[in-house]
């Protein structure tokens, strides 16, 4: 069975999604963003090939060296290669972004659909739950939850705990968005028709309504990855995220909280800092173009 959206695609050849895709392709910033993000992903995947030096190995003869031909981003206090650490740190950052967002998108979508579809008490409970979670500033509730979750997990699994906490606490915006659209689509003629043909509730929700919400879901997921990366970096910067010696962009920047390193070894924190900004800004470029492309107001 084809979803209504794709059936419509085939029939008209000039569907909403195609027009959106054309608008998206017009955006030069989005193109730049896509190229940069792809590059970052490749670097992260191929880390052992790109970064020849061991990111964890101390080299006491080459401590605190500024960038040179051998160490293009220099070395840190204990002689570790900053370039290697930045590349390996990217692995963690991107992974946290992807896993956390997958989790929050799944929860947000299901709860949003159910809430909008069933209405009444279910809707009320889910919406009050979103109100409660959204009242906590993200970094504060995550910082409060991570030590508790970490305490329940073995230390090498802390990073998965962090992904789970970020995912579990960032879904409410999406749930609200999907709920709003479901409320409208619930009464749409094609959904009523499907109901009349005997489609189960789950089928109506996931096969008939869900495809129509994919656009806003995609936009949310894109911005969500950016903010999950920022959250992990912030968490690690405050010493609660990825624990050294494992490199992450956040905990590499954290070393610069010592004024001595901030002043005298700027390359050790500027490299991961730039990596965060470049990655996040590229993802935001993509998200912005996506949003403009699927926004019915922009023709």
């Amino acid at each position, binding site marked *: 069975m084809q979803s209504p959206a794709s059936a419509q695609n085939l029939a008209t050849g000039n569907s909403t999604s195609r027009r959106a895709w054309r608008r998206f392709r017009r955006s030069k910033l989005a193109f730049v963003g896509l190229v940069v993000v792809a590059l970052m992903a490749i670097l992260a995947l191929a880390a052992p090939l790109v970064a020849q030096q061991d990111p964890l190995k101390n080299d006491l003869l080459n401590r605190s060296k500024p960038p040179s031909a051998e160490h293009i981003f220099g070395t840190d206090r204990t002689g570790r290669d900053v370039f290697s650490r930045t590349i390996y740190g990217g692995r963690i950052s991107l992974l946290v972004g992807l896993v956390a967002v997958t989790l929050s998108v799944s929860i947000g979508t299901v709860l949003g659909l159910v809430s909008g579809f069933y209405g009444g008490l279910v809707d009320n409970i889910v919406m009050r739950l979103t109100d*409660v979670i959204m009242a906590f500033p993200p*970094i*504060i509730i995550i*910082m409060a939850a991570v*030590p508790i979750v970490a305490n329940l997990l073995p230390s090498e699994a802390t990073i998965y705990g962090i992904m789970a906490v970020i995912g579990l606490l960032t879904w409410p915006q999406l749930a609200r968005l999907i709920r709003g659209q479901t409320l409208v689509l619930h009464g749409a003629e094609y959904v009523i028709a499907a109901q009349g043909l005997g489609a189960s509730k789950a089928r109506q929700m996931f096969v008939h309504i869900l495809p129509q919400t994919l656009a806003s879901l995609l936009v949310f997921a894109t911005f969500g990855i950016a903010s999950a990366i920022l959250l992990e970096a912030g968490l690690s910067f405050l010493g609660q995220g990825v624990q050294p010696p494992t490199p992450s962009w956040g905990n590499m920047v954290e070393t610069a*909280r010592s*004024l001595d390193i901030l002043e005298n070894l700027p390359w050790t924190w500027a490299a991961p800092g730039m990596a965060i900004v470049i990655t996040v800004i590229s993802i935001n470029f993509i998200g912005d173009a996506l949003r403009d492309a699927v926004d019915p107001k922009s023709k």
Partner: protein
Amino acid sequence: MVQYILRRVLINIPVLIGITLAVFLLISLAPGDPLSAYISPELGRDPATIAALRTKFGFDQPLPVRYLNWLAQALQGNLGYRIKTYDPVWAVILQRIPATLMLMVTALGIGIVVGVPLGIFSALRKYTLPDMVLTGGVFLGISTPAFLVGLGSLFVFSLGLRLFPAGGMHTLGRDESVIDTIHHLALPALILSANYIASMLRYTRASMLDVIGEQYVITARAKGLPERMVILKHALSNALIPIVTVIGFSIPNLLAGAVFTETIFAWPGMGSLFVDGVNSRDFPLMMGVTLVTATAVLFFNLLTDIAYALINPKVRYA
């Protein structure tokens, strides 16, 4: 209007209960014996006394009863006692609130004073070079985490140019003066506002562009009003309506930003207190700050809703 306010207050009550439930749940999951931290240290700290007090305060009861006991304590201002120093958490937080408010209000002020005019300018010069530069700046502003802006500015302005002190609220060993405090406040407040200027600019620009195409703006022009009047009086006053909500929903972000800026600049507010609490695994303190910030956010949301209804009658009667 009174009815509207009452309705908003009532809607927020279950949310407030939810917030306390969430915080209590976290406390219950915390390692060790977190509820003991709610027993006044003056009553004694030896295990036997604590065991007796636990029974007396009902901490050995089932979870729902424990929640109600805890809530009753919290409502009386007992947020527990700090793990090592035994200072009452609520008193410690209360002491830190003014510094955080000072930082946030200054940052909010800078954000509005800089962001709104730039947003109007950007909208009026849509797709020109200055607009594109500002839009680029907005992307940079929302994509750069507060801690990087903080470290970068510390590097350039405090260590490099030596324009601002590198931390604290007052110069040590000197009498407290307003000028000295402003000097210490300037850099953290500017950094905290960076993100905020970007989002104010972005929303003002979008809101202005929405309004500028409206019929009544065209009518105002057709009447022969000078362009200044059209923009500042007719367009702007309507464009500003959605901006009020932006102020409201930025409060959680400002609080989060304060956590970083206060930590970097050793600013003695709630944010740095919270980080201290997390680092020393001082759960009563962490949970106290979490509860207070969430309640504050809820309160500011309520204020925003009311302010929005005051300036936009359409909402009141909906």
